[in-house]
């Protein structure tokens, strides 16, 4: 199938039909959600790691 290309951000990209564009946007949305979940897990992991490594000493300080 031959398609017409278009300039997109300085790069030559094949043009998409409306259906393909819808799929593209749906995939981009799913990737964004996956990245958000990964970053959240990363932050929670660091928090838990800090608590576990410091242990009871975390609360053993002068007020």
């Amino acid at each position, binding site marked *: *199938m*031959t398609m017409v*290309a278009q300039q997109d951000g300085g790069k030559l990209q094949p043009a998409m039909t409306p259906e393909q564009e819808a799929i*593209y946007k749906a995939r*981009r949305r799913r990737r964004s959600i996956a990245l958000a979940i990964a970053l959240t897990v990363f932050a929670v992991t660091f928090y838990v*790691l800090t608590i576990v490594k410091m242990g009871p000493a975390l609360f053993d300080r002068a007020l």
Partner: protein
Amino acid sequence: MERPVTYIDDSSSIPAMAGGARVEDYLTLLKPRVMSLVVFTALVGMLVAPGGINPILGLIAIVCIAIGAGASGALNMWYDADIDAIMSRTRNRPIPAGRVTPEESLVFGVVLAVFSVVLLGLATNWVAGAFLAFTIFFYAVIYTMWLKRATPQNIVIGGAAGAFPPMVGWAAVTGTLSWESFALFLIIFLWTPPHFWALALYKQGDYGAAGIPMMPNVAGEASTNRQIVAYSVLLALSSLLPVALGFSSWIYGIVATLTGLGFVYLAVRLWRQPAGTEMRRAARALFTFSLSYLFVLFLGLLTDHIALQMGVL
């Protein structure tokens, strides 16, 4: 400026371009099947190591080792995209299929590698962190970029990368490397050549077309079969090292003996087959058995260790 662009028509997909990948494509880059074996062997290495580790830190360590293995896979797929496109087994991987660009795979692999090493170092100790970094380097650079296309010994030396995970798991608990952890390394190291050569024997055409010097293509089938028998015997003997070194008992000893004998039997049967369809069938049988062999062996080691811990033995 407009000009025609041709690509494979598939109404359910979009043109191969940056940003068109599915989440599943990124997961494929991590080589989940390889990762599952890495995770399991690392987990066993961690559980049979003397001493203990906080369960949460242990869980984080396993996740780090899994992500490190995944990073190696992504870097491997980035570098090997050209030969992956030639082989039937690999041509549908995300990069040769055009769903992920090489640059995306490279960045994905590097970010995950750095993340996994730093987090493992912080969660456990820097011996484990450094060893994980070395493992990723060994797989991505020593094996993928250098040995794989250069020598028929590629899988022998490169197999070390897949054998390191139980040592990383051991180091995560103890902070050191010991002869016991080396025994676990040796088992996987000696398992790798017969496993991959059995695969190469019935996928010879693929490897030959891609220009990868696998042993059957370079040394011939007869020589490969002899070497498979030699490595299988060494593997069966080395699988008894945990008993000899005293960190497992008769339960594991029985499992190692039976599975080792099975491995050697299938290797000898392959060696005795004349070239042709029967030989390829025997190679496939050995390859299939080798997949479950390592799992069963390490499961036996884990069961044995749990029985010892519970005072059953």
